[in-house]
């Protein structure tokens, strides 16, 4: 709870105080509260005690002390401002010094780098100079060797330097007319096989009027030949397509024929295997009904375990049997194996129907 009094409470307190202390006012109460707040501040009490001590020990009154304090406070404020400015200046100088130091270090490193680079360049220059001298010597030797080789080649080719110069002029002339030496040589080769190339060229020009016309006619002829060849190729392709279709049809027919042959083979196998038993089936189909039965004599069952020929007896009959025709045992059952094999309905006599 807040212990501070309200204005109303302060009035009440002052009125109560006036009963014992008539001159007491609300301002006095406020002063007391202020005093209480100040007493709570230990610095305030220390300051008061300090002033008392100053007066007692040094003989300096409170007023003088306060004036001196004020003066000192002003000095302190001024000095504090100077201190802050000096601190700032110190920081600035320190920063400048650090920057200068960093610059110096950077420049020192740069000088070292440049010196190293210079040394490297000098070395490279010396090496290059030596290499150039060697190359010059090599070039001189090569020049001499080529000159000797040219001389030797000219001598072997039986040509002179003048002829080489003439060939150069011819080449220049050919190129001036928009041809290349290779083209000119090609044209020359066309007539090279003819003994009388000049006459043939003259005849060709006489027949076709000009080389261009001759070339156009040759182009037309080749185009016609090409179209003819294309139509032949198309005809051959359509023939190929027809032959492919025919081949596919023949393959299908062959497949069917092979299936027929396989089926026929099966029929033959069936005929060979079952034809001898036709009579038995005909006979059985004449029966009104057929019972496929099995004796369940236990002795036969046990014996069948050891010898399959001595197992339970199977027998067929056209009437419901009363006992086993072999051992006379009265307990019989349908031969389930036969029924199951053919998918017939069990527990019933069977009527055999043969097909056409």
């Amino acid at each position, binding site marked *: *709870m807040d212990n501070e009094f309200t204005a109303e409470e302060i009035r*009440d307190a002052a009125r109560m105080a006036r009963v*014992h202390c008539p001159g007491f006012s609300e301002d006095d109460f406020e002063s007391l509260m202020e005093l209480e707040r100040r007493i709570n501040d230990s610095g305030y009490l220390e300051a008061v005690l300090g002033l008392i001590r100053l007066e007692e020990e040094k003989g300096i009154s409170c007023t003088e002390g306060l004036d001196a304090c004020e003066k000192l406070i002003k000095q302190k404020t001024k000095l504090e401002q100077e201190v802050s400015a000096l601190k700032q200046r110190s920081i600035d100088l320190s920063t400048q010094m650090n920057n200068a130091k960093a610059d110096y270090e950077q420049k020192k490193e740069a000088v070292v780098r440049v010196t190293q680079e210079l040394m490297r360049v000098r070395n490279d220059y010396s090496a290059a100079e030596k290499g150039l001298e060697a190359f010059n010597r090599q070039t001189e030797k090569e020049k001499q060797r080529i000159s000797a080789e040219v001389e030797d080649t000219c001598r072997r080719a039986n040509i002179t330097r003048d002829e080489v110069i003439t060939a150069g002029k011819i080449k220049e002339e050919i190129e001036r007319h928009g041809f290349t030496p290779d083209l000119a040589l090609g044209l020359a080769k066309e007539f090279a096989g003819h003994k009388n190339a000049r006459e043939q060229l003259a005849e060709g020009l006489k027949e076709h009027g000009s080389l261009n016309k001759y070339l156009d006619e040759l182009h037309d002829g080749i185009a016609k030949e090409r179209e003819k060849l294309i139509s032949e190729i198309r005809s051959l392709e359509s023939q190929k397509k027809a032959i492919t279709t025919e081949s596919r049809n023949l393959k299908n027919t062959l497949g069917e024929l092979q299936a027929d042959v396989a089926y026929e083979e099966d029929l033959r196998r069936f005929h060979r295997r079952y034809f001898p038993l036709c009579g038995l089936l005909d006979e059985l189909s004449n029966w009104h009904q057929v019972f496929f039965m099995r004796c369940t004599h236990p002795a036969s069952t046990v014996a069948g375990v050891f010898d399959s020929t001595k197992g339970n007896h199977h027998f067929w009959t056209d009437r419901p049997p009363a006992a086993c025709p072999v051992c006379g045992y009265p307990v019989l059952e349908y031969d389930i194996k036969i029924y199951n094999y053919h998918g017939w309905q069990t527990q019933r006599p069977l009527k055999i129907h043969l097909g056409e």
Partner: protein
Amino acid sequence: MKIITGSRASNQKEAVSLVFQEAGIGIMSLDVVDMFVSVAENAKTSAEIDKLIGTSVRGRYGNKASWRADRWFVPVPKLQFQGKDIHQLVIEVSVYLVAAAVVRTADDSRLITVAGPVGKPEIVSIPMVFLHALLENDLGRFAMVARDAGYTTWEVPGAKPVRLPNDFVNELTTMLKYQSVVSWLCQFGAQGRCVASLVAGSLIGLAFQDSSQTAPANKEMVTAENLVSALESLAYQPAEARELVRMVASRLRADMTLEEAIRLTLQGKEWNNNG
């Protein structure tokens, strides 16, 4: 005694909360409650308490009901500031019983809580001069009239002898070493806050009483006594002076100075004479 169903208290703290709730008192510090424990202990006459609980239980659950209870006693102080004659702080301490009981009847058993005041409230009156002396650590200025293990009676000039519980005075002395009187009163909650300004003002007045000059009549505050004295000094008979004061009593204000009160009284007398 009020019977509340269920076990509503299992320790002293819960019992205190329940009592505050039942007595309609707001928040109050447990330290304050502890100050009056000695008063509550005096109320523990167990035979009477058992009788009280038994009466309540049987009244509700029949004569055949048996019971077993844990019990706590909670002192509940109520503050009042009296400004007549001599300023004093009056604390009325009621002791409440809280009993968490198991009641067994022929049919079943159940938990109940019995709560209510027991005994007569004890009045603790602390004159402001006594409280001021206690703050000044100067109780020796009062003559000790009587003392036993529980109480001490002091002779306070201008007032009846003051009988206070020893434990309470010791607790109060200790408390006021570490906190102000206002803080202590605020621990009583809203009721403490109500009287705090009056107590503080009275104590301040006492503190500055010695240093103040005798106030002139135009500054001194009026009381019935000083008004009668002033009239007597104006050659009125004591009975006549008291009669005059009685006649103007309805028009006197507490914040009037003595001079204003004398003027009002004399004007009232003239009106009566003219009327």
